[in-house]
């Protein structure tokens, strides 16, 4: 590993540090400049001018979970598709690699097609 190679990544670390410094400087300046006049009403939960009733927890719908799960699958899928797309054109891959990917996507498509037909993907 030569210096230039890892230097490319070190630059990202510098960018992270710079971003964090920018945000933190803002936060500190804000703390020094802003007024602080606490009253009990200010710290209640926002309910369009009404007093809040009950606690802030609303049970969310299970379908968010289904879509998050689909996201996981497609994220893995994309992670395989990216290097595949990069090398498909080079010598020694071609049709065989294409068929491998078609089989991979085919399995996914079958499962999702089944779920689709059963109406699982319907939002309401």
């Amino acid at each position, binding site marked *: 590993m030569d210096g230039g190679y890892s230097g490319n990544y070190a630059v990202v670390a510098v960018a992270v540090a710079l971003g964090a410094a920018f945000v933190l400087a803002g936060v500190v300046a804000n703390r020094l400049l802003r007024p602080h006049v606490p009253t009990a009403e200010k710290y209640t939960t926002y309910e369009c001018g009404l007093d809040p009733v009950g606690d802030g927890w609303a049970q969310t719908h299970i379908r968010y979970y289904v879509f998050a799960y689909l996201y996981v699958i497609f994220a893995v899928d994309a992670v395989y598709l990216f290097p595949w797309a990069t090398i498909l054109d080079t010598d020694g891959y071609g049709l065989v690699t294409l068929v491998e990917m078609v089989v991979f996507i085919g*399995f996914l498509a079958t499962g999702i097609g089944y779920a689709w037909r*059963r109406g699982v993907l319907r939002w309401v």
Partner: protein
Amino acid sequence: MIELLAATPQTSTGEAVAFWCLAPIAVGAAVMILLSRKAVHSALWMATTMIVLAVLFIMQGGIFLGVVQVVVYTGAVMMLFLFVLMLVGVDASDSFVETLRAQRVAGILLGAGFGVLLMAAVSRATFPEAVGVGAANDAAGGHVEAIAEAIFTRYVFTFEVVSIVLITAAVGAMALTHKERLTPRRPQPEQSVDRIRSAHPTPHPSPGVYAQHNAVDTPALLPDGTASEASVPDELRRQGTVRYTELEAANRRADEDGERE
């Protein structure tokens, strides 16, 4: 680990410094996963561990692996965890009461035993001479190319199996969470027509008796002083947690008594 670092001649000073800076963060975050009382805090510590691991991968020259670690684990899998935790609720925190007797002792013993086994296995492992990821990359003509070659030629069967495992798990999850619709769907045009034809097409009166109470569980008062049931949400009415004004509550008690007689 120290011997390992010392024994590998390729480890540069910068790499060692970065390792000793990042490794404590990863381990500390991993410990915090166990110590956090709120599940979401644990999930965040886990995300921290994963990001630090990704940085370590990248330092080892595995940029693809590092970035994929962030995309798939930090991005997708942890997001799935967070969504599940939101289903569980905001205030859900672990109870520290021991429900099964001696569970804590057994847990500590098993954990220690596993740790000893793991350390024994790792310390007895022999490593071949390190080639370095650079050599492998050069052989294939690039980092991504080397990974693609491994996935699509040598490990192609594993690659296909991954797809089957993924989709089986997903279809299982979807089948478990799915609920068939029992009533036909009413599209928006139909709903709006129904609403116009109903007895009350305009918005409901807003809740809250402003001089005394100002909350959704307090019904608005009609001109004759009785409470407007339509002004409070159905859900609160069903739960029976509607707060009536004192006068209205007294009237209601009187009405109920009258009905009983």
